[in-house]
């Protein structure tokens, strides 16, 4: 599919009016991803509102409430492609109270574009956006210094903002080569898809060129293979009488036929007999594959269990510590019980202790008794059964979980295991 175009997933972050929607609209327009009927709709709406320019933000601001208030209030996914690359952009809103949305958008992204209004420079919001990119260990950050047209395309302004941002980078886990600065005007299209003649002093790539040279493999560091069992396939037909396929998505590393594997929680061992992808039998699967595996021996393995290579066992614990981001109005408090979903596995969890609320501006932490919507904190949990995890740092999918409210079933928190 997609003629082997690579897939790059991007989250945008910026304060209200920094120009996120305009930037995305501009990317769509410049890659010819906006169709005539959409462009006409934008022209119509822009005119109705009395603008003398095309308001590209109208291409992405979807919900009626947003159009009325002129703001983005939820994560929207936008798609476009170039000849070489498919892009998915999560447009996340920038209000103070909307940490939740950026965490959500960033959780499925490899790249973050942080917007800064050139007139305002690095502000408190910028700290928060970068903090979240750091917490989620986004692989690559583009700092787009926008509205350069409003500061006469002045290099000094750009250099000052870059220097301020570099101070933040020093406080983070990012290395310098993971951060790229680009001066742009989203409205005018300067350095978006077209090299700006207004800023001859900038010699780097345009935003689009930069996004195109990124390689997904470099953006997803490999670790060890983790195969959580999602669904057991038992055809019970004559042709497939004894077939028991353990299906799921493979994370972190390759698995191949003949690999010695250990099953969790039983700690039984076996060997991979075959790997199935639809009607094909394959020798080896790379991370991200949705496959079915059969084993040499009859074993007890069901949904929520995990298959790993022997000698590469994850941690198995009933007590865990994690950084929590609260994504629901209901506060997290000590003693509260939740359903903890780790991948496709669910256990019960009880909050043992809230250690601290973390300041999202790199200034440390404070004592806390509860975590409210958009709070980030360190929490200790006790679980009904052990889970088999890695640290978030070493394996994102096996190091993260969500908490589900026991009564309402809402998703209330996301956790990153240490």
């Amino acid at each position, binding site marked *: *599919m*997609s*003629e082997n175009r690579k897939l790059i997933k991007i989250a945008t972050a910026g304060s209200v009016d920094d120009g996120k929607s305009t930037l995305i609209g501009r990317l769509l327009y410049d890659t010819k991803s906006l*169709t*005539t*009927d959409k462009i006409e709709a934008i022209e119509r709406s822009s005119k109705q509102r009395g603008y003398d320019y095309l308001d590209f933000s109208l291409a*992405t601001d*979807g*919900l*009626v*409430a947003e*159009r009325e208030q002129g703001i983005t*209030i*939820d994560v*929207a*996914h*936008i*798609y476009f*492609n170039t000849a070489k690359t*498919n892009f998915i952009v999560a447009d996340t809103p920038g209000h103070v109270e909307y940490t939740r949305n950026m*965490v*959500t958008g960033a*959780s*499925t992204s490899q790249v973050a574009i942080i917007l800064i209004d050139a007139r305002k420079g690095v502000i408190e919001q910028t700290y928060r956006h970068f903090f979240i990119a750091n917490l989620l260990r986004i692989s690559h950050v583009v700092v787009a210094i926008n509205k350069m047209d409003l500061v006469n395309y002045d290099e000094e302004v750009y250099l000052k903002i870059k220097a301020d941002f570099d101070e933040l980078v020093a406080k983070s886990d990012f290395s310098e080569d993971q951060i790229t600065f680009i001066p742009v005007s989203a409205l005018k299209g300067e350095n978006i898809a077209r090299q700006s003649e207004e800023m001859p002093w900038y010699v780097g790539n345009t935003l689009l060129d930069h996004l195109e040279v990124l390689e997904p493999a470099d953006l997803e560091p490999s670790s060890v293979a983790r195969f959580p069992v*999602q*669904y057991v*396939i*038992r*055809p019970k*037909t004559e042709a497939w009488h004894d077939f028991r*396929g353990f*299906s799921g*998505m493979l994370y972190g590393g*390759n698995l191949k036929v003949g690999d010695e594997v250990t099953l969790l929680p039983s700690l039984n061992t076996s060997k991979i007999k075959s790997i*199935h*992808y*639809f*009607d094909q039998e*394959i*020798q*080896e*699967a*790379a991370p*991200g*594959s*949705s496959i*079915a595996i059969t084993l040499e021996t009859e074993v007890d393995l069901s*949904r929520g269990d995990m298959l790993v290579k022997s000698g590469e066992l994850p941690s198995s614990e009933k007590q865990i510590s994690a950084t929590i981001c609260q*994504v629901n109005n209901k506060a997290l408090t000590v003693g509260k019980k939740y359903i903890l*979903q780790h*991948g*496709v596995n669910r256990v019960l969890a009880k909050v043992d202790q809230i250690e601290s609320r973390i300041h999202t501006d790199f200034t440390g932490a404070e004592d806390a008794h509860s975590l409210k919507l958009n709070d980030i904190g360190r929490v200790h949990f006790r679980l009904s059964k052990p889970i088999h995890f890695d640290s978030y740092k070493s394996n*994102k*999918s096996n190091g*993260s*979980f*969500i908490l589900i409210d026991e009564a309402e*079933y809402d*998703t209330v928190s*996301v956790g990153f295991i240490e």
Partner: protein
Amino acid sequence: MSNLLIPNPKEAESIHIIREVAAQFERPVLLFSGGKDSITLVRLAQKAFYPAKIPFPLLHVDTGHNFPETIEFRDKLVEELGLELIVRNVQDSIDQGKVREERGRYSSRNSLQTTTLLDAIEEFKFDACIGGARRDEEKARAKERVFSVRDDFGQWDEKNQRPELFDMLNGKIHVGQNVRCFPISNWTELDVWEYIKTENIEIPSIYFAHEREVFFRDGMIWTANEHVYREAHEEVELRMVRFRTVGDMTCTAAVLSEAVSLDDVVGEIRESTISERGARIDDKRSEAAMETRKKVGYF
């Protein structure tokens, strides 16, 4: 035996989602319209459970105004794959007095489907409905979740959606609630066509250029037959057309086309300057049309 599988990330994600539906719900159903998106879903579901059969039935909410080619195709597919098909008719909802047939120039049974669908969900106690909606189809869809919880009235509350983090899907619901599941949320129209081409998936003939009696209204091409309201001055012409989206005849516009093969179609889509939903007459009614329909339980 091939060697190393390098996954197609969008396909792998969709299979993952379909398996989650089968694992998390008691009574899932796949909403099948006979269109290319639901045909793609069927292929993905085959891949998710092979060598077992797809472990849930298909539901077709039939407006009675479908293209005959679509119905023929549907029955053949179901037969070949040994699937269970449930059909519920909008005509029955009309006969039972639950909905009223629209009249006049833009009349369509498209929005009447909602009632028939909700009744079927209740009748069979379905707790998950798998649909082929994509986020790139329409602005309001761009914010739809992969698992979208609906209340007893099928309503969608866009301000109160569960955040979806990483690829963890939370399908826990209370009695009376159900979930709309969208495995190809992240696909674009071009992705679907390219997939149909590489996988060599069969699709109904109306997706390819053919001669048809049509008439022109509001810059769109409408099918001319007894189900579609037409005024005396709207003249019928014979044209080479094809459909980009296949729904009810009353709300699906054709495009002029010479594309007779999948290669041609993919080429046309790549070059095309009118979006797919631009060919949906129901969306033109107002800019906020889709969102309004979704709030009252439309798929």
